[in-house]
């Protein structure tokens, strides 16, 4: 099935079972209801991080995903609040709009490589934050607040998605939504990486000149990949806006862009599921250290340094052995 081995299928099944049944069960038993939001955040941030990972896959360090997450959050919020769209329509629209912006910006900047591309995307995050502060449609500094919860969707009278507004507790609903989105994202990412497009990306990552000599249209693929990456960013951001029911220019900023990148490094750049694990460890780790009070940041950073010191190729290199060639 889809070219998976039996072992992989079992792994996927265990993973799905764990997040859809296992986590709710554990939370139910331990009563740690606050973990729902944390894990929802992890899922959504992992979606955005997947995009960053994908740009790494064509050899670009992307510190601009915060910009696209913010764009997505605003597009969804504006469509829902000002145009009265259903959230479920605004979600893909947010992704598509972020992708369009990525195409426009990508045309000039994707020629850049290395630290130059990294820096220009970092500046991009600042630009988008400042634009959100300056534009009238984003409500400037006041942001957009009191965004209604996602409404229900029904097809021919059969309810497909329940109305979040009518729910007693939206935690579980948001958790499932985020997890489904995350799984779709990573399934798509996995397929993409293992399909022809993925192979072409890999060839570009390793040598753009050689890739173009064998007929790869590198400019085209760069744009496509950057657009897909930003689509993920837009989706993640839009979903977050819906949970917080508010969007501010500071909802996603440079620190977020940097964190998305760190998630990829921590998980391991060589592995599709690296960013997912990286996000879980970085974000959930912070929450788990909450008990440490004012030493939280100190311990967190020491652990982070220790991990990178001893596993410089990311956490997943532990399982797969040395992935690199150096």
């Amino acid at each position, binding site marked *: 099935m*889809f*070219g998976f081995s039996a072992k992989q299928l079992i792994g996927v099944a265990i993973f799905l079972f764990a997040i859809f049944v296992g986590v709710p069960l554990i939370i139910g038993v331990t009563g740690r209801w606050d973990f729902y939001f944390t894990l929802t955040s992890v899922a959504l941030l992992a979606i955005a991080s997947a995009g960053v990972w994908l740009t790494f896959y064509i050899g670009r360090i992307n510190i601009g995903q915060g910009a696209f997450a913010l764009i997505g959050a605003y597009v969804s919020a504006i469509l829902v609040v000002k145009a009265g769209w259903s959230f479920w329509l605004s979600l893909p629209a947010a992704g598509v709009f972020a992708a369009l912006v990525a195409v426009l910006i990508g045309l000039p900047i994707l020629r850049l490589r290395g630290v130059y591309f990294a820096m220009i995307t970092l500046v991009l995050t600042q630009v988008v934050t400042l634009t959100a502060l300056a534009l009238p449609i984003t409500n400037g500094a006041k942001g957009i607040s009191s965004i209604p919860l996602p409404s229900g969707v029904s097809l021919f009278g059969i309810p497909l998605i329940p109305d979040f507004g009518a729910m007693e507790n939206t935690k579980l609903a948001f958790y499932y939504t985020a997890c489904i989105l995350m799984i779709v994202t990573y399934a*798509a990412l996995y*397929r*993409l990486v293992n*399909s*022809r*497009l993925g*192979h*072409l990306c*890999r*060839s570009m990552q*390793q*040598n753009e*000149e*050689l890739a*173009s*000599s*064998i*007929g*790869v*249209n*590198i*400019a085209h693929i760069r744009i496509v990949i950057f657009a897909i990456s930003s689509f993920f960013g837009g989706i993640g951001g839009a979903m977050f806006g819906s949970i917080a029911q508010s969007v501010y220019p500071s909802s996603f900023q440079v620190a977020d862009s940097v964190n998305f990148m760190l998630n990829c490094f921590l998980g391991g750049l060589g592995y599709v599921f690296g960013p997912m694990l990286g996000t879980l460890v970085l974000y959930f780790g912070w929450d788990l250290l909450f008990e440490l009070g004012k030493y939280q940041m100190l311990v967190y950073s020491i652990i982070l340094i220790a991990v990178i010191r001893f596993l410089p190729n990311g956490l997943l290199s532990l399982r797969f052995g040395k992935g*690199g*060639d150096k």
Partner: protein
Amino acid sequence: MSALLQVRNVTKKYGGLTANNDISFDVAENEILSVIGPNGAGKSTLFKMISSFTPTTSGEILYRGERISNLKPHIVARKGIVRTFQETTIFKSMTVRESVVVAQHLRAKASLAGYFWGSKTAKEDVAAFGRYADELLEFLGMSGISNELASNLPQGNLRALGIAIGLATDPKVLLLDEPFAGMNHDETMRMVDLVRSVRDERGVTVMLVEHDMPAVMNISDRIVVLNFGEKIAQGTPSEIQNNEKVIEAYLGSADDEIGM
């Protein structure tokens, strides 16, 4: 002999520096043509212009009568003119077989979406690529190293890998960038045989830039000689060996000799 590739009055200037000045020559179908010249003669620049890695300043390059200069490299590659690089330009963390498979992507029948969803055509493509890669590696005598990481290969094999990647695209014209550089006599002889069989058995026209004179004289049907960006001679190996201008050019520059 009909001209497959025509270089017409090509000039390249970098700022005030003229790298190539008004170069013209033809490449016939199914021949092996070498471009030689002392260091700084403008061989590499000419190569880059033919493969559209750099634009010409003036003049044009035609392939079957169609202009191919000043396009994008991937478009020229799609038309069947494919260049190789020197040994450092490889897909470092792919295996030999992976490199050859990926290089076949121009032959794909299924769309990118088809690959994503795993369509039937895509699966057939994948199988076909694998078969062709094995066949090609067998032909090049590289079957034994097909699962080696490219970065782990010794220099001689890297050059062969470069040719394998170029051949995998199913080219009509293969442009080889110094295929014999840094090889000892035996290795060079093997490579000469290989290049010749590429032309003989696969019908690929070969154009190469090279320093190694004995190898060039051995392999070439015809030779074009550049010096200081100008074409100073063209002809069969024996004609070139006896050309006054060529001898003078090589004696004038200390760093290379026309040793035979």
